[in-house]
Each structure stands twice: as structure tokens, then as C-alpha cells.
């Protein structure tokens, strides 16, 4: 059992870390970075955890032992020593470096990221190193603070240095594959399998001259305007039709070379369109574009090649077009770690990026939050021909941008990451630079940026349900005796558990089943006048007034009546009953003189009467018993959480009736006692107010009558009606238990489902 608890505890712990945001290093660091854009969320994690743990721990640690162990294994040291402080300094430094502490790191292993495995391995190594070191060092010895401090400083510096280093080298292979120069193309223009694409806004320039064999692509074929939004990527179907018209086969030996009439935007756009179709694997851009070809004096022609349409069936790659929702998410998470799935790069002119200039068809100046400016033309050599800079220059440029981005709190990724280009165009530049694989933002959704947010309503319900479940578990495990789990599930004490747990926590009486009457001096007059009370009770009993309810109008005690339990109400959460005033005026007067008594009655257990284990539902009161006419025998007794008490004439008992209790009278005499509900003393004024409000307005609904004509509380009126529905259900239970329980738990599950998920769909 304790093993299962450990597993469940670990599981819940992990869920808590995940839900709370502790498994997002960026969030942890945003919490620690008080000087930056501080995110105090994690203080709420700690606060929530502490709240629960403090309240539960306060109660639990007062127990003699935990549920499944003989003793509490709780640290008892209270001294603060150098090891503690130093260890915490080192741990804090490590935490601040990477944003991982042990629990979240272990939980994050589930993501399968290599980074987490590396961190956990290093952490385990650190623990192991400590244990080796500690075994050799006498316990009294401590690491010299200066040594430790320099260790921290060195680590920080080392880490910072390595993080600040030059980005990894650009892959030469990628550049060769994706960028071809004029010489390369000129030597291959006749080869089969080569597809040269000439991109222009109109066919005019193409008709005048183009690279021999080049096929014309209109820019309008790869960028459409829809409404006010320009540059939308056509559908996969439209793009496929275009690729077929161009004779692109998608065969492995095919080589596509693209050039445009401008400095690169046109060709890049076609490249990205092909990429979205999954056909860019063999495509390359012509370095220098059409201008370069002409400047180099390469052959041109006006001849339009005869192109046989292909029947290529591309496999589109929609992931190449990032959705705006994804971009909005990335805008928040853009980071420079090896894990960063992407970073945001705004390749538009810097003036448009910083908002000083709007740009064509851009409704709002500025850039997407988190994007790094990297104007695509900066990648080009200066001079007339739009050639890409050499690799080393690009590397330096990217380093500069990275530093600039970092100063702005943003990071340009290295080549292991993908890049989302917020310009529709320049992605291909970056790609042929080998720096990254371009992904284009779909302009179609620019207008509807949806920031993905945690479903607050769902989480609220989840935490409420969690609180409820925790309360039920607390109530269930409170004390030594408990109901069977199945019965607890549907017991009334389950439904009031959260309220009762609140009352327990602020209760001024100790959490134990039998309480000390001396703590309630206001009850003394009852004990002192017990003979007066007894005499009135005897008269009532002899006149036959102490009896069971004949109808289903006493919800609170309904099941007792069949088991030999009878009562005469004096007062039940309201004014005393008229019949009680008539028949036992002195007792009523005594009860009236004690304001903390909210309910009182005479109760009787017939000989051989027996009521099994139950909890009273409401913890707002404690129970007072005063023996009046009792067998004075140990066979007439009550067990409260396993503690046995037998009534004696003139003796009183105070107990917490929300502990499991059962009673029996195995003698031949009836037992008559005075029975009262005494308000539970509560320290906190707010909770006390709540309790009094409930006593006044809610519990009174269970009032009922001694004689015809007295007031019956609303709850008991409803109970009378509901019980008529329950009768057929009880017959069902007798006829077919399986069907009955299926119906019962089905209804419970449906209620739970409705509670958790109803409305979530709408809110999401």
C-alpha cells in the first residue's frame, strides 16, 4: 500500500509540476529574473503547495503515526550550518543557470529531449560526486566557502562563455546544394533533368530574354491576394497544377534552378512554394539572380522551350507554412537553446521591423513580438549584383544579429533550429546559407492571432475537484475507524467534506473523538440540573412522546428508526418546538439559556437496539450527551472512533460526531439521554461567521415535528418526496444489485463529468 501511495504521490507531483509551469525552464528563469520581465507565477506554485502542505501537515504531524508506517520520517534538525547554506547557494546557482531543479528535470525526461537527459545525467553525477566526497570527508568538515564561491563563479563564467560563442559553422554542403552560381548553371543548361525557372511579375522581360531552357513562372502563381491580405500561398492543388505545367517531375535525378528578375524575393518565393509541395529537395537558387547571369555575359535566348506537362503527385508539406497560432506561441517561447524548435526572424527591412515605416499592405507597423530583425538584403554582397555574401561574412553577420537579438531579449537560433520567416520571401536565403530551413508564415491568418492560452476554467475546475478529492480523503482517513471506501464514496460526509475540512482546520477543539466537557463550561448547568431534566424526560417517555417518525419526514435520522432509535425534539436549529415548551418547560428553559446549543432532544435506544458505524455530516457542531435513564451497564454503549463509552445516569459526554461512531443497547432496559448539538468553537472569525450562517440557514432545513402541526423544514419536505422516488430504487437494489450499482455509479460519473467538462468546450 505504501508503495502505491509513493507511486501515486510521484504521479500527482509530476502533474502539479507540469500544470504549474515548473517544467518550462523559460518560465522558471522568468521567475528568477526579478530584474527583467518578471513572471511571478511560480510563487503561486509554491504558495499553493505550501497552503495544502501546511494545513495537512499541521494536522497529520499531531497523529501518533502515519497511516501506513510506524513513525514519521521527518527531519528534526533545526540548526543552520555552513553546509546547508553553501549547498543551497550551489543549487540555486545551478537552478538559475538552466532553470531546472531536480523534480521538473525528471518530469521533463518524458519529452525525450536530449538536453534534459544531459541535465539529469549531470545532476546524478553531481549527487554521486557529493556522496563520494562526503564519504571521504569527516562530517564536521565543510567545503571552504571561498573554494565554493570560486567554483560557482567559474561555472557561471564557463557557461556564459560557451553560450556566447560563435554559432556552429555553416554547412558547406548545404550551400552548394541550395545555391548554384552562373558557371555551374551555364555548364549544365542542356542536361536532361535540369529545370530552370525564370520568375517575374510579368512575362514581358522573359519574352525579351532568359536563360536558355528557362520556363516562366509568374509571381502571381505563387502569391495571391485574398481581400486585404497580400502574398497568400495558393492552395496545394493550385501549386500542384503549376508544378505539372512547369514539367517538374519530382524524380530523384531532377535539378531545379530558380532565378528571378529582382534581387531574390521572386525566386525565393518559388522556392518556398516548391518546399510547401515537398518538391524543393532538388531545388536551388541561382546566385546573383537574372542580373548576375546577364552581368557575367552568359548566353540568353528568347526561345520558349516546349515543356511536356508532368503528372507529378507531390506530397505537400503543410508544416512548412507555420500557422499564426504557432507563431504566436513561438513568439513567447523563442529561445536559443538546442531545443528551440524555431526562432522568429523578421526578414523585412529594419525600418518596417521597428515600425518607422509601414510597408506595402501592412495594416499595422511593427513586428511580431519576439522576432529578431534580419533584413534579407543584408545577406547580399554590396554592389549591383545580388549575390549572397561568403559564408564567413554571413557567419559574422549572424553572430552580430544574435548578439543584437540577445540584447533585446531575443535569440537567433543556430543552424540546428528551424526558422520562421515573417517575411514571405527571404527564407530561402537563410536556407541556402545553410543556417536553417525556412518555414513561411501563412499570411492568410495574420488577422487572427490567437494566443494559445491555458484553459483557465478547466484548471479552476480541476483544482476545485482536486481540493474536493483531497478533503474527502482527509475525512475518510481521519481517525482510526473508517467506512469502507465504497460506502465513503456516496456517504453524505463525502459531499460536505470540503466544508468540514475547513471547519476542522480552524477548530479550537483538539482533533480527537472524545472531547473534554470541561472545555465547555457553559454546559455545566445541564449536568447540575440533570435530575430536573430526567424527570421531564421520564414523564414524556411514560406518555409515549419519545418515538420514531411515522413518515419519511426526518431525513437526518431516517435510517435509525428501524434500529430501535427514538427521539423527542426540544429544539432543532431554530426556536424550541411548541410541544417541547408545553411538555418539558424546564429543560427547554435550560437549553434556551445556553446560546451555543442549536439542537437538543431526548433520545432513546430500545433494548437490543443497535446502530452501525456512521458519521454525522456536518462538522459545525460537536455532540453532547447527558445520561438520564440508562441501564448503567457496559452493554449499553457507544464507540466513537473505536473508543468505547457507556452511559451512566447524570454523567455527560462530549464528542466529535463526525468521527465514525456506532452504538448499541444490549440490555433489557431502554436508554434515555439528553442529546444536544453544541456549536464547534472556531478561531477564525470568517469561518466562524460562515459556520453560524450555515447553522442558522442550512441545518434548520432538517427540522421536523414531534406532533402533527409543527413546522417541518424544507429539506425534510423534499426528503418526503424524494423518498418516494427512492423506494422503487430500493426495490431495484433488492432485485438486481448489479443494475442498481451500475445506475448509481453511472449517475455519479455523469455528474463528475458534467462538473469537470461542461462548458469547457465553449470556453476553450
Amino acid at each position, binding site marked *: 500500500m*505504501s508503495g502505491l*501511495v509513493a*507511486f*501515486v504521490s*510521484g*504521479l500527482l*507531483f509530476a*502533474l*502539479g509540476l*507540469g*500544470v*504549474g*509551469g*515548473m517544467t518550462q525552464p523559460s518560465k522558471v528563469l522568468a521567475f528568477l529574473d526579478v*530584474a*527583467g520581465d518578471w513572471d511571478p507565477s511560480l*510563487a503561486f506554485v509554491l504558495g499553493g*503547495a505550501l*497552503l495544502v502542505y501546511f494545513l*495537512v501537515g499541521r494536522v*497529520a504531524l499531531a497523529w501518533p503515526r502515519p497511516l501506513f508506517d510506524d513513525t514519521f520520517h521527518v*527531519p528534526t534538525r533545526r540548526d543552520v550550518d555552513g553546509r*546547508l547554506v*553553501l*549547498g*543551497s*547557494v550551489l543549487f*540555486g546557482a*545551478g*537552478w538559475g543557470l538552466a532553470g531546472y*531543479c*531536480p*523534480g521538473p*528535470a*525528471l518530469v521533463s*525526461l*518524458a*519529452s525525450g529531449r536530449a538536453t534534459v537527459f544531459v541535465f539529469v545525467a*549531470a545532476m*546524478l553525477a*553531481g*549527487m554521486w*560526486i*557529493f556522496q563520494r566526497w562526503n564519504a571521504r570527508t569527516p562530517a564536521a568538515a565543510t567545503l571552504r566557502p571561498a573554494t565554493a564561491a570560486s567554483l560557482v563563479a567559474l*561555472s*557561471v563564467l*564557463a557557461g*556564459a562563455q*560557451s553560450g*556566447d560563442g560563435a554559432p556552429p559553422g555553416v554547412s558547406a554542403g548545404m550551400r552548394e546544394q541550395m545555391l548554384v552560381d552562373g558557371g555551374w548553371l551555364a555548364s549544365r543548361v542542356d542536361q536532361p533533368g535540369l529545370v530552370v525557372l525564370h520568375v517575374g511579375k510579368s512575362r514581358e522581360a522573359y519574352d525579351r530574354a532568359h536563360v536558355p531552357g528557362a520556363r516562366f513562372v509568374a509571381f502571381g502563381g505563387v502569391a495571391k491576394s485574398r481581400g486585404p491580405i497580400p502574398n497568400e500561398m495558393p492552395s496545394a492543388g493550385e501549386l500542384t497544377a503549376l508544378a505539372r505545367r512547369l514539367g517538374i517531375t519530382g524524380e530523384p535525378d531532377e535539378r531545379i534552378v530558380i532565378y528571378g528578375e529582382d534581387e531574390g524575393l521572386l525566386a525565393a518565393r518559388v522556392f518556398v512554394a516548391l518546399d510547401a509541395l515537398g518538391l524543393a529537395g532538388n531545388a536551388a537558387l541561382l546566385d546573383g539572380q537574372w542580373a548576375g547571369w546577364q552581368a557575367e555575359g552568359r548566353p540568353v535566348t528568347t526561345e520558349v522551350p516546349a515543356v511536356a506537362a508532368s503528372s507529378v503527385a507531390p506530397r505537400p508539406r503543410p508544416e512548412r507554412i507555420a500557422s499564426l497560432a504557432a507563431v504566436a506561441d513561438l513568439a513567447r*517561447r*523563442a*529561445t536559443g537553446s538546442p531545443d528551440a524548435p524555431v526562432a522568429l526572424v523578421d526578414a523585412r527591412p529594419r525600418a518596417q521591423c521597428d515600425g518607422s515605416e509601414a510597408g506595402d499592405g501592412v495594416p499595422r507597423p511593427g513586428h511580431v513580438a*519576439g522576432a529578431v530583425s534580419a533584413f534579407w538584403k543584408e545577406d547580399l554582397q554590396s554592389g549591383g549584383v545580388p549575390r549572397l555574401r561568403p559564408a564567413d561574412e554571413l557567419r559574422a553577420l549572424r553572430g552580430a544579429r544574435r548578439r543584437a537579438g*540577445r540584447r533585446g531579449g531575443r535569440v537567433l537560433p543556430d543552424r540546428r533550429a528551424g526558422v520562421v520567416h515573417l517575411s514571405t520571401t527571404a527564407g530561402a536565403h537563410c536556407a541556402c546559407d545553410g543556417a536553417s530551413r525556412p518555414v513561411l508564415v501563412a499570411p492568410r491568418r495574420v488577422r487572427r492571432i490567437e494566443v*494559445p492560452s491555458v484553459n*483557465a476554467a478547466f484548471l479552476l475546475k480541476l*483544482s476545485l475537484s482536486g481540493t474536493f478529492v*483531497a478533503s474527502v480523503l482527509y475525512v475518510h*482517513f481521519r481517525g482510526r475507524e473508517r467506512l469502507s471506501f465504497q460506502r465513503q464514496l456516496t456517504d453524505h460526509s463525502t459531499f460536505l467534506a470540503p466544508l468540514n475540512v475547513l471547519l476542522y482546520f480552524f477548530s479550537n477543539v483538539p482533533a480527537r473523538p472524545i472531547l473534554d466537557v470541561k472545555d465547555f463550561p457553559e454546559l455545566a448547568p445541564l449536568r447540575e440540573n440533570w435530575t430536573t431534566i430526567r424527570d421531564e424526560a421520564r414523564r414524556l417517555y411514560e406518555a409515549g412522546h419519545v418515538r420514531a417518525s411515522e413518515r419519511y419526514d426526518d431525513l437526518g435520522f431516517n435510517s435509525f428508526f428501524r434500529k430501535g432509535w427514538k427521539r423527542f425534539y426540544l429544539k432543532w436549529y431554530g426556536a424550541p418546538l411548541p410541544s417541547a415548551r408545553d411538555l418539558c418547560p424546564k429543560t427547554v428553559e435550560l437549553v434556551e439559556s445556553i446560546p451555543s446549543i442549536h439542537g437538543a432532544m431526548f433520545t432513546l435506544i430500545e433494548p437490543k437496539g443497535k446502530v452501525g458505524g456512521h458519521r454525522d455530516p456536518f462538522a459545525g457542531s460537536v455532540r453532547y450527551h447527558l445520561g438520564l435513564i440508562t441501564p448503567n451497564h457496559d452493554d449499553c454503549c457507544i464507540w466513537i472512533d473505536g473508543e468505547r463509552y457507556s452511559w451512566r445516569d447524570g454523567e455527560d459526554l462530549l464528542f466529535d460526531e463526525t468521527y465514525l461512531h456506532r452504538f448499541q443497547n444490549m440490555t433489557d432496559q431502554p436508554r434515555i439521554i439528553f442529546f444536544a448539538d453544541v456549536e464547534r468553537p472556531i478561531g477564525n472569525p470568517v469561518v466562524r461567521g460562515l459556520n453560524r450562517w450555515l447553522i442558522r440557514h442550512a441545518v434548520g432545513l432538517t427540522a421536523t415535528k414531534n406532533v402533527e402541526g409543527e413546522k417541518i423544514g424544507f429539506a425534510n419536505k423534499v426528503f418526503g418526496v424524494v423518498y418516494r422516488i427512492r423506494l422503487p430504487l430500493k426495490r431495484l437494489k433488492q432485485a438486481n444489485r448489479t443494475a442498481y450499482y451500475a445506475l448509481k455509479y453511472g449517475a455519479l460519473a455523469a455528474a463528475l463529468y458534467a462538473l469537470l467538462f461542461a462548458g469547457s468546450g465553449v470556453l476553450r
Partner: protein
Amino acid sequence: MSDFTPLSSFAGGTLIGVAAALLLVANGRIAGISGIVGGLLRKPSADTPWRALFVAGLLAGGLVVQSMRPAAIGPSVVGYPLLVTAGLLVGFGTQLGSGCTSGHGVCGIGRLSPRSMVATATFMLAGAVTTYVLRHLLGGGS
């Protein structure tokens, strides 16, 4: 660039509190992750099974989180050299200081232990200083 999420964070914290309280109430144990994991590195003892089961629960919980809300497990924000450095510091530091965020921060403060309060204040401060140095003085990391 991190969003303020008091609600979900509080909910998550409550869950953590429930988990830690459960371990205390049922088994009388402290849900200190570094203590539990560190204990697993030592020679097997009577405590090994429950520790292993707790860690198994933690890992299983990670899988649940990953399958239900992959975005909840964020990427590392630093490169390998820093990760290794940080891991070594966290591992060594939590053992030397006998606790981490869970053991000191939740269970210790929850029991009003002065040691844990000092430890928590110390590692929070050290974390904040480290972040400050990295982000604002060196301009790296992030």
C-alpha cells in the same frame, strides 16, 4: 516573454501540495525529490523500493503531462555546456544542502523548519543572482 499564469500555477501548486501531503499522511515521508533521488544512488536499503516507486510515479506523471499537454514541458533555454554545469551544481548542491525546491521549499517550510526557510531563501537568492549575472551583466544565456 513568459506569461503570468497565477491560476494554473496555483492549481499546479495545490496538486504538488496534495502529492507531498499524501506521502506524509500515508507513509510519513518527506517528498523531497533530491533526497529521494540521492537515496537511490546509495546502496539499496529498506527505503529503496518506495523511493524507486516515487520516481517511477514522477516519470509516469511526466509521460501523462507530455501526452496531454506537450507544451507544458518546455525546451531547454541554454546549450549543453551550461546544462552540464547546471546539472552538476544542482546535483552537488542539493546533496550538500540536503534539499531542493520540493524538500526545503514545500515540505520544510510547510513544517515551519528554520533550516528549510534559510535554505529556500538562499537558493532563491542564488538563483536570482545567477540569472541576473547571466542575463543582465553578461548578456548571455536567456
